């Protein structure tokens, strides 16, 4: 209905292959960016930053990372929590051992360390598939949990095992305010997200999807399974690692190994499934959904409970939460395996065809 595509013809392949070939979409995307960067900072409160905006942004980035691996390359991973941890602790160590490095440089480097580790734990994927691989990634998760907890060197021998991020500053200006935190995370998320989008629509992305859709055929037309899979692991771990480092430095400030345990892995997996496998946009939608849902439940359930005269504790709320998430996962896998992203697309198609039904 709002689309006016007549006259939007493509005279070059560059235009034809653009991320947003349709002018109206370009406009919306631009508008969103403007809002996120210029409007939000003026309206958001400390609470919204801490509870909603920053987690959403950072976890979106992590979800994009996981989606690269699961959604595009079809390799299931239950170890993403640990890889966030790797990013976080790597960045931490770089920061404490090489104090002259800017924290954000450390964040990036943390990503690269995570990528390296990712490749190592990706090697099994060359021999094994499906849930065998899932188990392998679980190994990564548990090994991570253990290492963060027990290998004192990683936590720089801090007795409590909890570590603190270095003060955030760039070119001398202090970035510790919530607004700054938010904007920094947003920059990382947008830039790296764009990068991921570019990769998945390029030939490497096509190799991943080929492996995902039919690995045998892929190999027979000359895709190197090893290169395709390991590159997916690397890119995925890099993004997740950076997200982890941001999570630690920007969001948590000081943290313990528990921040990156298996529940984080599941959380990310839910974002990807609910948001939509094989969709960058979906990853973000998933993150938003998963972050907002608990907040919503915490607001909504107790009052509802009171109505029917039933005292609902926060514990109960969390139980409901896991029930609802569980149910949603099944629901999406059954009804719409491509998640919120596909729902969004279907809606968009309807708008484009309006007033015709199809």
């Amino acid at each position, binding site marked *: 209905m709002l689309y006016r595509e*007549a*006259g939007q013809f493509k005279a070059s392949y560059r235009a034809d292959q653009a991320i947003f070939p349709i002018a109206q979409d370009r406009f919306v995307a631009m508008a969103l960016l403007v809002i996120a960067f210029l409007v939000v900072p003026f309206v958001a409160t400390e609470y919204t930053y801490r509870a909603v905006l920053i987690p959403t942004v950072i976890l979106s980035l992590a979800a994009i990372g996981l989606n690269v691996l699961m959604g595009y390359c079809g390799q299931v991973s239950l170890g993403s929590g640990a890889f966030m941890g790797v990013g976080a602790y790597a960045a931490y160590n770089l920061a404490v051992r090489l104090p002259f490095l800017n924290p954000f440089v450390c964040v990036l480097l943390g990503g690269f360390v995570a990528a390296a580790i990712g490749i190592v734990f990706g090697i099994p994927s060359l021999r094994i598939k499906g849930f065998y691989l899932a188990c392998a990634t679980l190994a990564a998760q548990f090994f991570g949990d253990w290492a963060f907890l027990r290998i004192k060197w990683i936590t720089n021998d801090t007795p409590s095992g909890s570590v603190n991020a270095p003060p955030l500053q760039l070119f001398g200006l202090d970035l510790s305010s919530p607004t700054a935190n938010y904007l920094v995370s947003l920059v990382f998320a947008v830039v790296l997200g764009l990068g991921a989008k570019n990769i998945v629509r390029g030939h490497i992305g096509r190799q991943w999807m080929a492996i995902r859709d039919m690995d045998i055929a892929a190999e027979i037309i000359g895709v190197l399974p090893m290169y395709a899979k390991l590159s997916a692991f690397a890119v995925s771990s890099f993004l997740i690692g950076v997200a982890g480092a941001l999570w630690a430095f920007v969001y948590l400030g000081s943290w313990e190994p528990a921040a990156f345990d298996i529940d984080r892995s599941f959380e990310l997996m839910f974002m990807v499934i609910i948001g939509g496998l094989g969709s960058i946009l979906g990853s973000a939608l998933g993150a938003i959904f998963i972050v907002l849902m608990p907040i919503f439940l915490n607001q909504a359930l107790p009052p509802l409970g009171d109505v029917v005269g039933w005292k609902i504790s926060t514990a109960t709320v969390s139980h409901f939460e896991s029930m609802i998430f569980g149910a949603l996962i099944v629901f999406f896998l059954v009804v719409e395996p491509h998640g919120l992203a596909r729902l969004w697309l279907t809606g968009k198609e309807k708008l484009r065809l309006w*007033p015709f039904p199809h």
Partner: protein
Amino acid sequence: MISKAPFGGGAQIRDTFPKLLVERALTCGSQPAYREKEFGIWQTYDWSRVAREVELFAAGLADLGFRRGDRLIVAGYNRPRLYWSMCAAQSLGGMPVPVYQDSVVEELSYVVEHAGAHFAIAEDQEQIDKLLEIKRSVPSLSVLIYDEPRGLRHYEGLLSYGDVQARGERLLATKPDAVTSEVAKGKGSDDAIILYTSGTTGRPKGAVLSYDNLIWAAKTGAAFDGLRDGDELLSYLPMAWVGDHIFSYAQGYIVGLVVNCPESAATVMNDLREIGPTYYFAPPRVLENLITQVTIRMEDAGLIKRKLFQNFMAFARRVGPALLDGREVSFVDRLYYRMGELLVYGPLKNALGMSRIRVAYTAGEAVGPEIFNFYRALGVNMKQLYGQTEASVFVTIHPNGEVHSDTVGKPVADVELKIGDTGEVLYRSPGVFKEYFKNPQATKDTKTPDGWVHTGDAGYLDERGHLHVIDRARDVGKLNDGTLFAPKFIENKLKFFPHINEAVAFGQGRDFIAAFIDIDMTAVGDWAERRNITYSSYQELASRDEVYDLVQGEIEQVNRDLSFDQQMAGAQIRRFLILLKALDADDGELTRTNKVRRGFIAERYKTLVDALYDGSKSARLKVDVTFEDGRKGTIEGTMRIRDVAAQAATPIRKAS
């Protein structure tokens, strides 16, 4: 794209297309001239590229022995390279002869032979095959050039477009002015092109148009509707049709339209949508098909959408045209229309690829008002134009704000119109063709010494200055009192009523007009049922008083219409009868394409015709018929004849 100015920029007066091309290449060389949907995108060629292509191809032709005055057959679907080859031929002072790509070998063969062409360029294998076959019987056709190589690999003795240009390049290397010098020789009065009119009767005739003709037409048309540089046009109509030649070729050079060639005939709708032209032409049947498609697709829509659609469309039919014509529309209506624009009209135009249209023409056959108005209602500036090959298209067009579905508009600048004493429309204009190629007799028959051209259409001008075309001139007769009598015109008016299947009007050499009515069994049938009028057979139904009343009412309505029309006011239906049997092709009363054979019917039902004019109240019929199953038999019965009151001629106002 090109280092040196093509043709050395030699030409001064821009009176031929090759010269105009030079100018464009120099002044706006980097602006898009042609686009073609190929390999997934709209490949774009700017003017300097076109100039280069044309020069090379022209040189190639010259090298192959193409001389001033030679003819180049152009066969194929609209393709940039074919358009360029035309300009190349013209550069050398030759004449392109575009032919209908779907014409069968016989037709094509006649044209090739009659045009005496030695050269031909074809789009693809399909066309090449035809030309090769012709070549056997027409040896003069010596050089065959193709654009699309697919499947031609193993053919002998063909040249590809590229081959020709390669030759051209070599020639230009030695003789840089090979083309430029020829271009400089061209004058506006030279023959530019031969367009063969697909003859409805007899052999096709090749109308020769000069540069002056075409350039006048292109300029006048552009001025009339304010076409501008950069307007987009989708060229999908046959290149052999004068309309396409003016819109996609002449106006390209004159106005700087961008000519967009679809990927294939099959993808036109989609390509139209992508390009979203600002300037559009479609024959009535295309417009009709589009509406049908829209209706069909809307049928599967949900109830709400459907209601929304119907509601807003109904509203638009009322308000849309008024808005387009800039007439008074209440604020509320404007607001409501805006809403419709957002919800229905906009998306619909978008889906049809008509969002950006500034002016659209339809012509050819008479277009039904409801079809015509559908587009105006949506806010598409749809107009009728009346034109001919012999006129370089433009004779009349609907001016903005004066669009009446019952007229074909006003004469464009420099066009003089007059109505011959037989009622035939004649015109004179700078666009009038030079002659029919190698056919002085036909030329003499069509074009008077002082330059008036017989259109062969009967029509008249109303006092708004609008031309009405009513019928083919040869069918038009006169009553004894000299009033114009156009049977088809009247019959069509009658046939607008669902209850009337066919009608036959008489009046030539009589005092008044009388008509046979052939009722539509099904329509009248359920009309009768809803009034629980019982009947057992066609004959019985046809002779019921109620039916007579019904038909009489409708005839009076027609008379009323006619009375508004001061030309036709005199030619009203005074008597009629309802035939006891349906007119039938098996009885030779209709042609196979269901056109009434007036003469034959007049013969067969002579008694009835006489009865209509001798004032008798009834007439007896006894006639042999052939039933569906082929059995022969006779029908007989008596028919009452009714008189209808004539309406007093009323002054115009209420018209349109």
